C-alpha cells in the first residue's frame, strides 16, 4: 500500500482512532502483546489506552519497548499497519507520556503543524 507512505499520517493516540477510520495514521506506543501468529500486536499509548495493530506479514524479529506503526485505521478501529519502526532506547528512554502531551499540542494547533500540503497560490 504505497499510498500510506506518500500520504500525511497524522500522529494520533488510541482515543482518536474512531475519528480517523479509513485514514492513514501514525501511532507510537509501548508494545504490550504480540499475537502468537506474529501478525497482530497490542500497543498502549501515553494515556495507557490500547490499540490493536494488524501486520501484513508476521514479525520476523523480536520487538520490545516503544514501536511506531503507520497504517490505515479499519472500521473496527484497528490499525492495518504497513510498516513499523522501533524507537531506540539504548541510550535514553523515551517519555511516552510526554509524547502524548506533545501530540495533543499538534492537534490544538494544526495551523502550525499541518498534516497536509496546501497548494500555494
Amino acid at each position: 500500500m504505497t499510498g500510506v507512505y506518500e500520504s500525511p499520517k497524522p500522529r494520533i493516540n488510541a482515543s482518536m482512532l474512531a475519528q480517523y477510520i479509513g485514514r492513514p495514521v501514525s501511532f507510537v506506543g509501548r508494545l504490550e502483546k504480540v499475537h502468537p501468529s506474529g501478525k497482530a500486536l497490542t500497543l498502549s499509548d501515553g494515556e495507557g489506552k490500547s490499540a490493536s495493530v494488524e501486520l501484513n506479514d508476521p514479525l520476523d524479529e523480536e520487538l520490545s519497548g516503544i514501536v511506531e506503526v503507520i497504517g490505515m485505521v479499519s472500521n473496527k478501529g484497528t490499525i492495518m499497519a504497513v510498516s513499523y519502526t522501533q524507537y531506540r532506547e539504548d541510550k535514553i528512554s523515551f517519555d511516552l507520556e510526554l509524547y502524548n502531551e506533545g501530540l495533543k499540542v499538534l492537534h490544538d494547533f494544526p495551523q502550525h503543524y499541518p498534516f497536509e500540503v496546501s497548494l500555494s497560490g
Partner: protein
Amino acid sequence: MWNQGKYGEASTGGYTQSPGGFGSPAASQGGDKKGRSRAQQIVPCTVSQLMSAVQAEDVFKVGEVEIAQVTIVGVIRNTDKSTINIQYKVDDMTAAPMDVKQWIDTEDMGVDNSVIPPGSYVKVSGNLRSFQNNRSLVAFSVRVLEDMNEVTSHMLEVVNAHMQQSKPQSMMVRLMGGGAGTNMMPTAHASMSSTGSYSGASMMLVNGLSANQNQVLSLIKSCHEPQGISMQDLKQKLSSMSVTVIRQIVDFLSNEGHIFSTIDEDHFRSTDNEA
C-alpha cells in the same frame, strides 16, 4: 578608516566609550548594509510546511515566517548513494517523504560519509531548495537521533517557532470532535483569528486562515472572470474536500470579507483585486 564622529567620541581615552563598538570599523562606515539585514535563523519545520511554503523570488515563507535554513526530524525511508552525494527520503508523517541531498566532501576526514540506513530517525539541518517545482533540502547535517525524545521536542519546537512569528492571535484550544471528514476543522480556528489587522502588509498569504481556507481563497483569487469562479469549478479542483466543507469555507471567507458572491450564491470573487 575611523569615522570622524566616532574618533571624536573616543577622544575621552577609551575606544570602548563609542557606542558603535570600536571593533567594527566597517560597520561604522555604514556601507555594508545590502539587503541582508533580515535575521537568518534556523527554523524547525515540518515537511508539509516546506512543501506548502510560498516562494517569492528567492524567499520562502510559511505563513509569516521566512525560512531558509530549517530543521526537520523524520525517519529515513530510502537511500541512494553516488560518489558525490547521498540522497535520502525523510518521512516526518506530515506529507510524502522529502528529498534530502547531502554532498559528500571526499577531502574532509572529519565528516562521516557512511549512509544512514532506512528505518533510522534523523534530524536534518539544511537549506530549502526549489527546482522545477520540486522541493528538496540540501543538508549540511544529517544526524541520527540517539534520544528519541527529540521527536517530541521537535514537534513542540515547530509549533512554538511558527506561533511566535505569527501575528498574535487569541489562543485556539477548542478541539472539535466528530468531523471525520477533515482534520483541519477550518471553521473552528479561523473564527478566532484577526484577519482584519493584516490587509495592507502581506499580499501573499492571509494569515490566520487554515490551509484548506487558503487553498479555496487562492483558487477564488486566481479566477479573473467578472462573474468569478463557480461552485462547480471549486468542487472539481478541490477533489479532496467535500461540498459541505467547501460551502463552510466559502461562507466563512465571505463573512470575513475575503470574497463576495456575484451573479448568484454559487459564484465568488475575491475582494482583494491585486491580480
